[in-house]
Every structure is written in C-alpha cells, then in structure tokens.
C-alpha cells in the first residue's frame, strides 16, 4: 500500500502535503473480520482511484474533516460502500457486507460453439486505457456488449487483445521491454440492466483474475464458472486493478499550463477492434460508479478487441 501511495503522491498534493497526518483505513469483511483484498477505492471529485493490495489497507493524507469529497469502495461480491470523506475522520476500519447471488445454473449439455465479435489481432492499433492529449482515462472498468440469437447460452471462453510491446515467442518478433508488459486484471460478466440497458447484475459470483507477462492476446477459459446468459445480450468487462503491480506512467501535454504532465497509468490497455459496427457496444464504469457508453474513439472504434465463444 505504501508503494501506491508514493505513486499517487504527486496528484494528492492538491489536498494535502507531506507534513500532514496520514489516515490509515482497514477494509474488512463484516462477518469474518478478514481483510478484503483488491478493493477499488475512488475519491470521486478528485478523480483519484486505487485498488488495495491483499491487506485491504488504504491511506489518505490530510485533515479529512475539511475535505468535501466522497469516497466509494467497491469490490466484486460485496455491497458498494459510499461515504463523505469528512465522515471517515473518526474511523479506521470499514466493514464491507457480502451480498448473496442466487444463480442456479443447471448443468445443461450444449452442442454448437459460436464465435461472437471476432477480430484480427494484426489490425488492432488503437488502445483504451491510456491518458492521452485528448482525454485522461478515468474509468474503473470497460465492458463489451455481446448479442446472442437466443437466451440460455453457455459462455465458454473469451479472448481479448491488450497493449504489449514485447510479443510472444510464437509471434516471431522482437522481445525487448517484455518486463514492462506485466499485468493482472479481473474479468466481470454482466447481465443487461433493464433500465439503463448497460451492464447490470453480475452473472458470475466467483472472481476471475488473469495475469499476463507478455503477448497481446489473452484467452480465458470460462468453462469452470458455468456461466449461463439469461437474455439475448450480455457484457464482458475488464476491471482494472489500480495497484502497484499495474502502475506505470503516461506523459501528456497540458495545454492550459503549456507543460508536460506525468500521471499514473495502469495496465492493461485494451485493444479496439478495427471493425466498425453500426452501434456503439463499449460501456465504461466511471469514478462515480455509473456505466456510460464509451465514445472516445467514435465514429470508429465501436467495439473492443474482445471475442467470446458461446455454446448453444
């Protein structure tokens, strides 16, 4: 946790300086009392977000009673926790409550495999997840919407393309800077929300976490999770773990101050499919924990470079 605090210290000086008190918080499970690992901690107006390490600890420097901002804690299978920062001033422990998901996916035998949203990895040249001259990437998750012909299909596998500079040996090319490509991230599967038509409830109660050290293609076998899609559309999201392991930097030009700005930037960056569809199928979860259509690359870039294999 100290590492990630050091990394974002430069941006946090907006609200505090090194001489001020550092407030330490422990995130624990309300029943077991054990630390809740990899919890997303987002300070909404300051547009800061980190992910805790395994110890479930996060720190905020400064006098919390003077801060007029809101913090949101969120992690899979727990109820989101939202509280004004000034109310944290007399707390050191935050208890998250696990919620129960009733998903009774009976074991059904399916026959045919179908590939959804195919792409050619050679054509992927644009990536989401990087601060650029035109916008900072201030999102917690990016989701690709898929469509099926009928409800009740079985989600077997997904493959996505991420930014990597050193490629797999099988790709017959140079392998320099491979060590800069390390990443781990989580995958979330969502049903459609009947009101927003964006991602809704989780369709998988278990944590799907993937680690990748080199290569741009990431294939994840989802068979063991027994995920059945209840409707004719579903979402597969990449959830960033904004922790020390994934942390790097981005350099952008700040036109107002006319100088270069160095900001934390977290792996992975997700490829954008070169096939432009008629409809935007990418959704992004912002720091307010609202799902919004992700139109950064429009009018092209309607889909992530992410494909799924389903079984009927």
């Amino acid at each position: 946790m100290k590492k990630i605090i050091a990394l974002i210290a430069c941006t946090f000086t907006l609200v505090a300086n090194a001489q001020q008190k550092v407030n330490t918080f422990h995130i624990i499970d309300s029943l077991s009392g054990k630390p809740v690992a990899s919890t997303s901690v987002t300070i909404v107006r300051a547009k800061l977000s980190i992910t805790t390490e395994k110890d479930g600890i996060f720190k905020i420097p400064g006098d919390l009673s003077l801060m007029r901002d809101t913090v949101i804690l969120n992690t899979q299978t727990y109820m989101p926790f939202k509280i004004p920062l000034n109310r944290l001033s007399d707390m050191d422990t935050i208890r998250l409550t696990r919620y129960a998901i009733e998903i009774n996916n009976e074991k059904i035998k399916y026959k045919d495999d179908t590939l959804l949203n195919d792409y050619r990895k050679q054509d992927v040249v644009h990536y989401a997840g990087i601060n650029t001259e035109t916008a900072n990437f201030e999102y917690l998750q990016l989701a690709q919407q898929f469509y099926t012909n009928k409800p009740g299909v079985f989600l077997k596998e997904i493959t996505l393309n991420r930014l990597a500079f050193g490629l797999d040996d099988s790709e017959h090319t140079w392998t320099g800077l491979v060590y800069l490509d390390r990443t781990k991230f989580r995958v979330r599967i969502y049903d459609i929300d009947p009101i927003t038509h964006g991602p809704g409830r989780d369709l998988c109660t278990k944590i799907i976490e993937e680690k990748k050290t080199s290569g741009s293609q990431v294939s994840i076998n989802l068979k063991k999770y027994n995920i059945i899609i209840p409707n004719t559309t579903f979402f597969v999201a990449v959830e960033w773990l904004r922790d020390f392991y994934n942390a790097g930097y981005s350099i952008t030009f700040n036109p107002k101050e006319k100088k270069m700005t160095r900001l934390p930037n977290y792996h992975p960056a997700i490829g954008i499919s070169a096939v432009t569809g008629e409809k935007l199928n990418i959704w992004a979860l912002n720091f307010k924990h609202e799902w919004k259509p992700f139109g950064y690359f429009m009018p092209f870039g309607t889909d992530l470079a992410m494909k799924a294999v389903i079984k009927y």
Partner: protein
Amino acid sequence: MVRLNYHYLLFLILCFPPTLCFGQDVYDGQVINSVTDIAIPSVTVKLLKEKVATQTNERGYFSLAYESHEKNDTLQFTCVGYKPFKLPVSAYLPHVLIALEASNTELNEVLINNKKVKQIILGRFFNYDLKNSGRSNLYYHVTQVIAQRTLLAKLFTAPQANAILTSIALGRQDLPTSPTYAIRNKYTNFLIHVIAEDPDVGGPGDILFTKTVSLSDNSARVDIDVSKELIVIPGINFFVAIEWLITPYNEIIAVSNSPKLDWVTKRGYQMLKDASEYRVSYQPFLIGYMNEKTLKPAVLYTKVGRSWQATQGYDPWDLALSATVHY
C-alpha cells in the same frame, strides 16, 4: 537498389526498420510504375506455393497473410499492361516497394508528349529517398509541441505564375523510429492545404485549397490527385502544408522505461522497479531525406498560434513532399 538495365523489371526495395515489424505472418508493400512512380492499383499478388493471393488497392498497397513459413516460396506480381515480376520470399523485406515496368512503353509516350502544356515535379523525391537506413529523418507531430504546431508548410517555386497544381506526393512512415518502442498505426486522417505566398512577409498567406486525406494502409508513398480542382497558383511561390489532427484515430502509442519507487531501505536508499511510461504521438509521420542534388534542407514554416514562423528543417534533410504543376 536500382538496376537501370534490368531486362524485365526495375525494382526498388525499401527497407524500413525490421526491428519493429509486427505480424511477420504478413507480406506487405507497395507496387508502383517504374517510370512515373505512380502507384498501380489492381496488381495481383500471389504466393505461389501456398496458393494465396490478393490485389493492390488504389495506392498500390498490398497485404498478404500467410500461414506456412515456406522459405522457397515466391511472390508473383502480375497486372495487365505491365511485365510480371517474381520475388523470392527469401529476398523479401518488410514494406517492400516493387516497381513494375510497363509492357507497352509507347502508351507512356502518348501521355507525356503534350507540347502545349509543360509539366514539372517540384521538390521531387525518389523512392530510394524513402528508404530508412539511417540517412533519413522523420518530420512528425511530437507531443511536446502539440499546442503550438499542428501545421507544417513547405515552400515551392513554380517556373512561372498562374501554374496549375495537379498532384501532391508525400512520403510517410507508419511508426516512429527506434529507440522508442511503438505500436504501428496505419490509419490516419490529416489535412493538406495549398497556400499562396503572403507578398508582404514572404511566408504562407491565403489558403487556396484544402483536402482531407484518409489512409488505411502502410503505403510509404502517397499520391494525392488534385487535377480536377483547378488550383491556380497566383505567384511563383506557394506552399503545401500538412495539418495534423489531434484525434484518437491518429494516435501512436510508444513506451519507455521509467522506474517507479518500490521501497526505501533503512539507510534511505530508494529501490526502484521498472515501469512503463506511455507517450502518444499522432500520425502522419512524414519522411525527411538527404537531398543529394541540393544538400539543402527544405524551407519550412510552422504555425505557432495564429502566425507562421520560418523553421529550420533537419539540416541537410529535405522533406519528402512534392508538387506537380502544369504551366
């Protein structure tokens, strides 16, 4: 390499940095006319043993994916009106440039011999000038100057006033140079302006013509036909300017190593760990080359805020940007 007396074909091979070539399972390149340098569309490109084929697009660009790595295979180029050409894959280099020889040279003479109208290519560059072998340099829109410089104009001097601009050609590369590691982006949109000379200051003045150029392939040479636009150059001096569009479509992402603080020892030593540092640049990357005729850099202007400023090119590099005029 140029062999002027080659019996069937004249071919030029451009060798861009092989260190950065992604997707080695694709043969790609550009096919041009050996005399006019103009791209040839609809050339059939076959990989003979693997029996896969494709055709060049309107910029003469082809991209042929293959699965096997047969070392003895051959790329064959055929097109009506041109002599066929075979290239062993062992001689293939990324972004190969193939110059096909016309099979009926009389046709070319009919097109060229127009005594009433003269044609001249100003700032002419050749395909070997686009070769990146340490002799060339790139003109591109770098992050540091993003707020100030999105326009780069090159001065041309026509033989006489009231010449008509018929085409513009430029050399372009789809990735930055080493040592930065970057992802190739073949897609780009940019603007090209034709600008009259400001008689008071001698720099760029009124814009005569603007065109949006969209590219979606890795072709190194880009020909822009403006013959139907009837662009009359009022004086003898004029400018052709490239305007970069700072949009996600043109992004090129590069990475370098920028260590992050891992932990601090009891004695106060900072232990660092490698971390990525991303920078974004924007297409197009224009090619600079050493003009062996003049050994002078191009006369260039950049737009800073609302005013144009003369800028020194990379001495003695010229900018691979030419203009063809009729007079």
